[in-house]
């Protein structure tokens, strides 16, 4: 590990990318969650779970430095949050693009490459090697997520699953070491949930990109997870899924009786969660 050539920042396997220690967050004076401790190591697949309104998205924003925390410590790549956001691929919580949006998927992917640089993109002839590298990388990530067929269509005309794949391509384009995904499966049908989950898993395993993913339903990603963190207003529990998603652990965390049932196909159902909209689609 000490045999690094100068200038090369190589993260050794298992190094901590993300360390949250006793973090408390408040939005508009209202405490969202408190005393959350979380670690994400290189190449790990971690899910953030919990009922609505417990601050799962807030946690991700704190990691990105978009939201100040009111207590505790957040370290991202051994630095305060927001310092190394170019090493993070972020997919915010969202609904679909407006059908009238007249921008192609490939343009959306390209924004991830240099959309934050001032000025305009010059035509290919003038940019030489840098331009070619950008175009090659765009093609590469589009192929990686399997979006070649519809990348040239206006994004508004792509289906929810297609849009999600293109946005994952955008998040991946700068070869991030950490993907931060906010409910990427939420607006998808069951088939697309499975295939997008598998895509995220393959990115995580074969490219060594750590994933921190907020999910409303753990089942599509359950087989792939290394760690889960269950958030509650008063704290959080982190560990391997089989240890955390149990009746005892969750009952203790939420201070109420919670059952974890498993059906014949292995799907987990958490019953009794203090979710204010438990019977409905998550409200936003």
């Amino acid at each position, binding site marked *: 590990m000490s045999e690094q050539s100068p200038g090369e920042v190589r993260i050794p396997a298992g190094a901590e990318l993300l360390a949250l220690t006793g973090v408390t967050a408040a939005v508009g004076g209202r405490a969202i969650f408190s005393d959350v401790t979380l670690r994400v190591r290189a190449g790990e697949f971690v899910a953030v779970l919990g009922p609505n309104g417990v601050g799962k998205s807030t946690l991700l924003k704190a990691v990105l430095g978009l939201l100040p925390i009111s207590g505790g410590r957040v370290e991202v790549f051994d630095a305060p949050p927001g310092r190394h956001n170019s090493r993070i691929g972020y997919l915010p919580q969202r609904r679909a693009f*407006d059908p009238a949006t*007249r*921008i*192609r998927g490939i343009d959306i992917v390209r924004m991830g490459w240099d959309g*934050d640089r*001032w000025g305009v*993109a010059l035509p*290919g002839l003038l940019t030489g090697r840098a331009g070619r590298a950008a175009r090659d990388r765009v093609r590469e990530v589009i192929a990686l997520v399997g979006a070649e067929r519809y990348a040239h269509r206006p994004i508004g005309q792509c289906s929810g699953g297609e849009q999600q794949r293109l946005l994952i391509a955008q998040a991946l384009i700068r070869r991030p070491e950490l993907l931060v995904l906010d409910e990427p499966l939420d607006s998808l049908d069951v088939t697309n949930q499975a295939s997008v989950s598998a895509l995220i898993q393959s990115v995580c395993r074969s490219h060594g990109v750590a994933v921190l993913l907020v999910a409303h339903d753990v089942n599509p990603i359950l087989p792939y997870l290394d760690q889960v963190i269950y958030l509650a207003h008063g704290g959080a529990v982190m560990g391997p899924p089989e240890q955390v998603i149990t009746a005892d652990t969750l009952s203790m965390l939420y201070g109420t009786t919670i059952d974890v049932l498993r059906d014949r196909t292995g799907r987990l159902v958490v019953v009794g969660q203090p979710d204010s909209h438990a019977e409905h689609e998550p409200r936003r």
Partner: protein
Amino acid sequence: MTGFSWNLIEDVALLLSYHFMLNALRAGTIVAVLAGAIGYFMVLRRQSFAGHTLAVIGFPGAAGATWLGLSASAGYFGFCIAGALVIAALPRAGRRSSGLGGYGDESAVIGTVQAVALACGFLFVSQYRGFLSGLTSLLFGTITGVSDAQVLALLAAGAGCLLALLALGRPLLFSTIDPDVAEARGVPVRLVGAGFLVLLAVAAAGTSQVTGSLLVFALLVTPAATASRLTARPGLGLLLSILIAVAVTWLGEGIAFFSPYPIGFWVTTLAFAAFLLATGYRAATERLGRRAAASPAAAPAGSPAGGGSR
């Protein structure tokens, strides 16, 4: 007045022999390029309402300036830019209201401001006696009114505005389409939005001086909306929007010269015709695309553009 012959070259030569026409064409070209470019982003950001309000705010500016004996140009630019800064400073205005792919409409506050602006403009015009034809030309434009000094002012404003738009370029597009990710990537989304509103104000003020306050949209919205129906590529869309704006301005001014009807009518009508054609083209290609996708023989349907990404 002047007669139209079917010899187009002679007609153009005749048209260009008048200094006021030359100035009208110069001003029209500057304004069309500016409005076509800024308008493209305005349509993408769904900020047409803000754009319209800024144009209307220019009306009391120009009327007030004329009343006080100042140049109408100064009134247009001063009021429009001040209006843009106010809209940018409004809490949450200019922030997207929902979803992706553009901005929600600005709040009702802007509509309220628009009504007050129109009323003030009318008051100023009524205070300025002996300015009978002024009201219509301020609201609907005139072909004769552009002075040399105004052309120079427009040129300076237009060039500055386009340079600023080039500098904002990618971050503006990024924060328009995907504000959350842009913010996470360190784009100052709010600042870029405010900067764009100022550019929009300059474009609206400039365009008002040719088309009048109420017909600004002929150049600011219609060419951009037409272009976005023809292509989903940002670079090409921007270029088409500018070309359409310039074309309808030249044609409109030319026709207005030979006809008894006002310039605003012609420019607007031509722009609208282009928009209708583009909408028809879009509907036709979409229907064809759907039919091609439905038939199993045409496998790779739906990707008309092969390579060449920008």
